[in-house]
């Protein structure tokens, strides 16, 4: 066990994956001498060489497209997208190539790519630097999507993602990069599989589902609710595609109440899928319609407005009140 930051934990996971398999290469912008704008690849080029930690020219479609070509030849490329909002130039390669090649070739060609995406807001950044594009990818068949919430998972899940023969989008909550935690670097073997959710805080009254940066906020909400006599079960999804319905379903059958929270816009966000699926699976157990606490249906706003956009402790607690039928901000409004 070592105490390290979230960012260092990813770095450690990358390093282990590179040590274990010479076919792992990293490609991205500014990942070499600089070590990435967030220093996630710090020292890796120095230690593994410029052929395995590849500073790419400034073109995201090419980063993904050349990684596809490397995968054809048996490599396991890890692509770094510098910020969430810069993934769109690569969208075509991800959706039409990375996601479909295994299917297209009837399983002959594997696409064991990992696509690292620092995502989410709360860092006071400029436009395109705070987005939550995960729902575009969870709607894309052929991809796996994960989001990590703590240093230990960051370290193990990146290794699992790289080891996966399917392409994996690995979302990193950038505002937690400096959070510290204990990390067992050798936890890989008995680690929870990448596609399983984890009950973070057990509880009995309300199921609170989230992922990424908001897991920490959800924990805080559970603590605050507890003071108020409400027992909230917090689930960290970890895998956004496939969703681990069995874990969530077991919880909702117990609590009868579901709150989902994410930073992405509400319309068509992951919350919609989770609410719809859990309603299908647990309709007769539900005491209240699932409640979604999400980002607004707006382009990511300027830094000084983001606190109104992002779900926070109070908004989540308001959602908990809502799903419990307690007085809340919408009381009296037909909802």
């Amino acid at each position, binding site marked *: 066990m070592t105490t390290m930051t979230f960012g260092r934990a990813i770095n450690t996971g990358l390093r282990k994956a590179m040590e274990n398999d010479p076919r792992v290469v990293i490609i991205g912008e500014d990942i070499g001498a600089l070590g990435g704008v967030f220093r996630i690849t710090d020292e890796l080029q120095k230690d593994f060489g410029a052929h395995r930690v590849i500073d790419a020219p400034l073109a995201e479609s090419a980063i993904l497209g050349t990684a*596809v070509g490397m995968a054809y030849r048996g490599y396991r490329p890890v692509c770094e997208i510098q910020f969430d909002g810069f993934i769109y130039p690569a969208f075509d390669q991800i959706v039409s190539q990375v996601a*479909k090649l295994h*299917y297209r070739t009837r*399983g002959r060609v594997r696409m064991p790519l990992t696509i690292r995406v620092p995502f989410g807001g709360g860092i006071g950044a400029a436009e395109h630097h705070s987005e939550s594009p995960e729902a575009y990818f969870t709607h894309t*068949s052929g991809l796996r999507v994960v989001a990590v919430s703590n240093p230990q998972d960051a370290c193990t899940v990146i290794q699992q993602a790289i080891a996966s023969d399917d392409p994996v989008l690995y979302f990193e909550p950038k505002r937690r990069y400096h959070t510290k935690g204990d990390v067992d670097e050798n936890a890989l073997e008995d680690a929870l599989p990448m*596609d399983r959710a984890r009950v973070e805080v057990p509880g009995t009254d309300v199921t609170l589902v989230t992922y990424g940066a908001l897991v920490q906020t959800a924990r805080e909400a559970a603590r605050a609710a507890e003071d108020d006599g409400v027992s909230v079960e917090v689930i960290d999804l970890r895998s956004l595609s496939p969703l681990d319905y069995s874990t969530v379903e077991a919880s909702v059958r117990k609590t009868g109440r579901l709150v989902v929270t994410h930073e992405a816009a509400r319309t068509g966000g992951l919350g919609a899928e989770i609410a719809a699926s859990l309603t299908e699976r647990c309709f007769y157990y539900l005491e209240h319609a699932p409640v979604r606490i999400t980002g607004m249906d707006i382009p990511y706003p300027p830094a000084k407005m983001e606190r109104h956009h992002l779900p926070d402790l109070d908004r989540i607690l308001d959602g908990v009140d809502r799903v419990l039928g307690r007085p809340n901000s919408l009381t009296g409004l037909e909802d």
Partner: protein
Amino acid sequence: MSLPGTDPTGPLNDESYIQLLAPDGTRITSAEFDPWLEDIDGDRLAGLYEDMVVVRRLDQEATALQRQGELALWPPLLGQEAAQIGSGRALRKDDFVFSSYRENGVAYCRGVDLTDMIRVWRGNRPSGWDPYEINMATPQVIIGAQTLHATGYAMAAKFDGDDAVAVAYFGDGATSQGDVNEAMVFAASFQAPVLFFCQNNQWAISEPVGLQAQGKLSDRAPGFGIPSYRVDGNDVLACLAVTRKALDHARIGGGPSFIEAVTYRMGPHTTADDPTRYRDANELEDWKRRDPIDRLAALLSAEGLLDEALRQRVQQAADDAAAEMRAGCINMAEPGDLELFENVYTAPHPVLARQRQHYERYLDSFEAAEWGH
């Protein structure tokens, strides 16, 4: 405002390209390129002739199969035989091809099974062959996307210290796509052993090449630091020689090259297309005079090689190939009801597994109902 693509003095009529075999079958000597043809004796010439005749015949057979409702669609290569056979026969077995949908002549050179060639066009499979069996990716439909795959493959070959070359085939229209330009950037920066082989067949569906480029397509690559050749794409010897040279350059560490093969799409874009809506019939007549097969036939004749035996052998090979493809097409097994769920992922995926299970139940419910009646 000047309209692009309408200038009759544009690149369409520019013939400054490498030519080793004139339209009338005359062999043009070249100090630079003849060394790359030293092994091309009479037998090999006859082989190239056979290849071209066979792929044209296969192309016609596939078109016929489409007209007869046996294939959903077919993208003819008619007119592009020299570009595809000349370059395709230059490749080494361990080179790797990333092509678009039209390079069935190249696939033929790679040794593709003739039934595999048409599986995707019959709608039976998401693609036809195993890429690793013939070292050629299955057809790319997204214009230009494969040029990046080729570049990445070439980078990886270089990581491995291997001297295999990746070859990207694409059309004149594709040169406008961002991906193709990014591929040139990456290929140049990493000095990747990749060959960009552009078949300028003058048209991208209904759009003339003059809409995509104001100059020669081959002028683009040097600006990226990539050596470039413009070759008569209807001259199988020129295509062979130039491709060999470019491959060798890549093999010995010289990095990427770009070849523009100037040719012509004599047929429709696909069997769904009607070129009379957008192009002049005279244009086709012009290009018929530059037919790639006729001119090699003329050379063979002139050298006394095109005797009745060869004619018959080639005819037989073409007929056999066509028959094999037709039989493969007509006897192709239909996909199973649940096949669509296969190969989405390499490892278990509970959400999809459940969908599949539900759908199986659904299908079963009909059977149950039928039994019930």
